């Protein structure tokens, strides 16, 4: 199966600053993919390159097997930018009409159904909607063009918990129904843990992790034990993060070799712990640069 998004040595520079560099990725279709990383890690840059809003400084990106700006790709990719750009003076109904004019594959009955399900008044001006309602409307517009790939940049970052839950419910129902591939950038790791099957972690403008979450979780463990024996773990495992107290060491290790020494407490990690560890261990590089 061809990847829905492929990057090869992709990089983008603003002035002398690289926002994204050496990005080589192949994202699988039919999944919900979480794109996580600290602010300024390059998430928005990667998504903007994928939809052709930015041109790469180096390397290449292909979406659904084609260049981002080719007409076929534009029709098949839905994108909701972080600020959810909508026309404030249009009503909900007018926004849908505009969607129909601009998109040849527009699903008008589907769009009306979604608006009814969410409970948005058709004659309401977009400017008068709440943040949660605007997000739901932007998602409706993106979904109603029937995309094969939906890219969402921090869709729930500015929403209250209820609006966030409602947004994710709508999104996940849509995934269940149509099987659309979703790439969702977020720094809300708990949401990503529940909704995503594949994780891409960006930090310091580089891809640090890109794999399905189950594989990542099975490869990592948190071990706690005597500091003096810690070295023995380094031979069979990659130590991602190490915290040392006077006599005790807590290590996040990568590797499947069994740890049977009863002095060591071993437990599985959550996706949140894993992501935080990779984000924080890649910080010193940034300081040095």
């Amino acid at each position, binding site marked *: 199966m061809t990847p829905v998004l492929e990057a090869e040595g992709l990089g983008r520079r603003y002035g002398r600053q690289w926002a994204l560099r050496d990005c080589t990725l192949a994202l699988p279709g039919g*999944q919900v993919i979480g794109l996580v990383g600290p602010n300024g890690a390059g998430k928005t840059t990667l998504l903007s390159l994928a939809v052709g809003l930015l041109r790469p400084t180096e390397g290449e990106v292909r979406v659904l097997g084609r260049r981002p700006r080719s007409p076929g790709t534009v029709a098949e990719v839905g994108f909701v930018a972080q600020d959810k750009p909508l026309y404030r003076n249009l009503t909900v109904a007018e926004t849908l009409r505009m969607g129909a004019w601009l998109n040849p594959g527009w699903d008008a009955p589907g769009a009306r159904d979604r608006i009814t399900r969410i409970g948005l008044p058709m004659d309401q001006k977009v400017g008068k909607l709440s943040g949660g309602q605007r997000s739901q409307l932007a998602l409706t517009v993106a979904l109603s063009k029937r995309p094969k790939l939906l890219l969402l940049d921090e869709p729930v970052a500015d929403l209250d918990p209820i609006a966030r839950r409602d947004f994710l*419910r709508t999104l*996940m129902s849509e995934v*269940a129904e149509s099987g659309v591939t979703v790439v969702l950038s977020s720094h809300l790791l708990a949401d990503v843990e*529940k*909704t995503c099957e594949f994780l891409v972690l960006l930090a310091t403008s580089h891809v640090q992790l890109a794999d399905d979450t189950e594989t990542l979780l099975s490869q990592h463990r948190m071990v706690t034990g005597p500091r003096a024996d810690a070295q023995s773990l380094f031979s069979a495992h990659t130590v991602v993060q190490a915290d040392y107290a006077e006599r005790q060491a807590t290590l996040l290790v990568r590797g499947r070799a069994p740890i*049977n020494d009863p002095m060591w407490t071993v437990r599985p990690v*959550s996706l949140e712990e894993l992501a935080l560890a990779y984000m924080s261990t890649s910080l010193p590089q940034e300081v040095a640069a």
Partner: protein
Amino acid sequence: MIDFQLDDRSGVATYLQLAQQVRHALRLGLLEPGDKLPTAKEVVAKLAINPNTVLKAYRELEREGLLVVRQGSGTFVRTSLAPRDQAELVELQQRLTDWVAAARRAGLIDEDIEAMYRAVMRKDTHDTEELHDTRA
């Protein structure tokens, strides 16, 4: 119909939580053979989780012979889970109570006991896995 709930702080994988809730409902007789389970879409519309998580839980239960997936019509309960043998449960609990009393007499506190329990469970899981590895 079963109403799934999630405990975000339990640390148990979501699909395992769903599978446990089905088994629990079967054991209590809240679900019976022939009952239909909610579709993945119905579950995610409530819990806001990935639909494949629901399918994974159902597949797991299907492998255990508890559910059957009928293409086009849904997922159904195939067999009921017999409630556990009460006498056996009582006896196991009595033995555990005796063991805990012995551990306390030996000076162990609750945390020592929990650490020992976890170590034994871990060893047991590992031994079982090794057994599978040797067979394979």
